[in-house]
């Protein structure tokens, strides 16, 4: 084989391995040392060695095993070398043993155990700051770099990089264990993992109608993670609920923008543009989840998506059901965001004044003052009660708070319908 063909084949194989196994390889290495950062360094060096070695000697039959063996050697060097001064003798022996060639060789024939779930529980451990859990999972499970993560989380790559490094230091220094929590503590700990995956998906942003999660850069990654959790924990109803929620939102992705990039609210979307397969999958997941008999936030949010989709497809108003679901959700997770959406559903059922009474107040939660959907919802309801002056003011605040130009234009158009009133 000529060298160029060999180079290309090596690169293709390495890329394929990175795509299917990156998180598994990191989890396997990090679980043995408790040290995520060193595992990342060792694996990236192993990939570099592969790109140098494979074109000359051909791609190995089991590239994962090859990479693990090389990464393991690099890790042992690190621990015998500069990290020696930080580690007590017993611990060093334990790490070396866990990384031993025999230990790894024994596991590789069985496609080595998938420890990604344990790694996700490490990243979403209560000892790790909540805001960095989603970025951490995106990096260590999927191999995303700080730059890609930073842009989705609206922060600078340097700041994101620093926070990721600090979080990995904490995992190592604090001795956070790599394991899936025991049955009795699983529900609370799993919530943190699901919340992190959801944050990767949405960061909680909703459109002015409160029914569509705005499109973010990392939706595909978040969908992969949500699916991964359901595969590894197939009997956890809330994990199924989260995947259903994500699929429902994702199914409407294409319909959310018009031909000129303008924002299209749910009520005006063309259901033919929705991904019917994703919706069907989401419905099946919700059914499976409900059979498990433990209701939760993500299942309720998934059910709300399902109700909105059903109404738009059939034209049959189902606002009483929607309000009931929001009542349940509010009782479970009484966030101002839920309260806003509940009020909007009440508007459909009992009119705008009733909805305004049900709206949360800025005096009760100062965060509302900076929350665009709150002001857009207030504006909509105020306009319906003919309080045009107040409605215009509320629209102005909403427009000033919005960062998506398409949504901003949508709000400006809504405001202009009040001109002269």
């Amino acid at each position, binding site marked *: 084989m000529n060298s160029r063909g060999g180079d290309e084949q090596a690169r293709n194989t390495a890329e394929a391995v990175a795509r299917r196994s990156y998180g598994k390889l990191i989890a396997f290495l990090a679980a043995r040392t408790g040290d995520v950062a060193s595992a990342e360094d060792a694996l990236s060096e192993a990939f570099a060695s592969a790109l140098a070695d494979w074109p000359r000697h051909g791609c190995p039959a089991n590239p994962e095993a090859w990479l693990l063996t090389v990464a393991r050697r690099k890790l042992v060097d690190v621990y015998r070398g500069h990290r*020696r*001064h930080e*580690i*007590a*003798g017993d611990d060093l022996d334990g790490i070396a043993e866990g990384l031993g060639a025999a230990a790894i060789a024994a596991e590789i024939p069985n496609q080595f155990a998938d420890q990604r779930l344990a790694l996700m529980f490490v990243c979403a451990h209560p000892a790790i700051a909540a805001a960095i859990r989603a970025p951490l999972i995106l990096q260590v499970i999927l191999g995303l770099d700080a730059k890609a993560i930073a842009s989705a989380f609206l922060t600078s790559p340097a700041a994101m990089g620093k926070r990721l490094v600090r979080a990995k230091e904490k995992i190592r220094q604090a001795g*956070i264990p790599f394991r899936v929590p025991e049955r009795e503590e699983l529900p609370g700990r799993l919530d943190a993992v699901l919340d992190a995956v959801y944050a990767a998906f949405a960061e909680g942003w909703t459109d002015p109608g409160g029914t569509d999660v705005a499109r973010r850069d990392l939706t595909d990654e978040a969908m992969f993670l949500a699916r991964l959790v359901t595969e590894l924990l197939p009997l956890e109803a809330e994990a199924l609920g989260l995947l259903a929620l994500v699929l429902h939102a994702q199914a409407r992705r294409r319909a959310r923008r018009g031909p000129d990039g303008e924002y299209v609210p749910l009520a005006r979307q063309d259901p033919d543009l929705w991904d019917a397969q994703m919706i069907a999958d989401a419905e099946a997941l919700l059914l499976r989840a409900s059979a498990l008999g433990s209701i939760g936030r993500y299942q309720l949010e998934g059910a709300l998506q399902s109700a909105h989709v059903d109404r738009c497809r059939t034209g049959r108003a189902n606002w009483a059901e929607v309000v009931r679901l929001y009542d349940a959700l509010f009782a479970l997770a009484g966030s101002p965001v839920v309260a806003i959406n509940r009020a909007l559903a009440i508007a459909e059922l009992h009119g705008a004044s009733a909805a305004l009474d049900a709206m949360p107040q800025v005096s009760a939660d100062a965060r509302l003052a900076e929350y665009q959907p709150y002001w857009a919802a207030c504006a909509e309801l105020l306009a319906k009660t003919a309080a045009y002056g107040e409605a215009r003011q509320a629209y102005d605040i909403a427009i000033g708070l919005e960062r998506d130009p398409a949504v901003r234009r949508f709000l400006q158009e809504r405001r202009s319908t009040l001109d002269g009133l």
Partner: protein
Amino acid sequence: MKYILMAYVNEGAWPKMTKAEQEQGAAAYMAYAEALTKAGVLAGSNRLQPSTASTTVRIANGKSQVLDGPYVDSKEQLGGYFLIDVPDLDAAISWASRCPAAGHGVVEVRPIWAMPA
């Protein structure tokens, strides 16, 4: 791994307690230390005198400066510590949550810097 569990408590509360309450409080700490010992994880512990007994020392401009009082002036002060040896942070957190101080104050869990063998 070794961790120190630092008990930060409201010192003002202790003198205001009745004798019976103080005895009950002290007994809870004794029982906790006993449980740590029985589990074979206790590596050391001490109760501290209140921070009114504290003196702070630092060298400024080559001169030692001695001040009355604790380093951080806050309502909750370090009242004592337990040094434990457990497998990981989850085990340390689990012990911290049983410490009586977690009920009437705050327990900070901090890993010990391991010295090379």
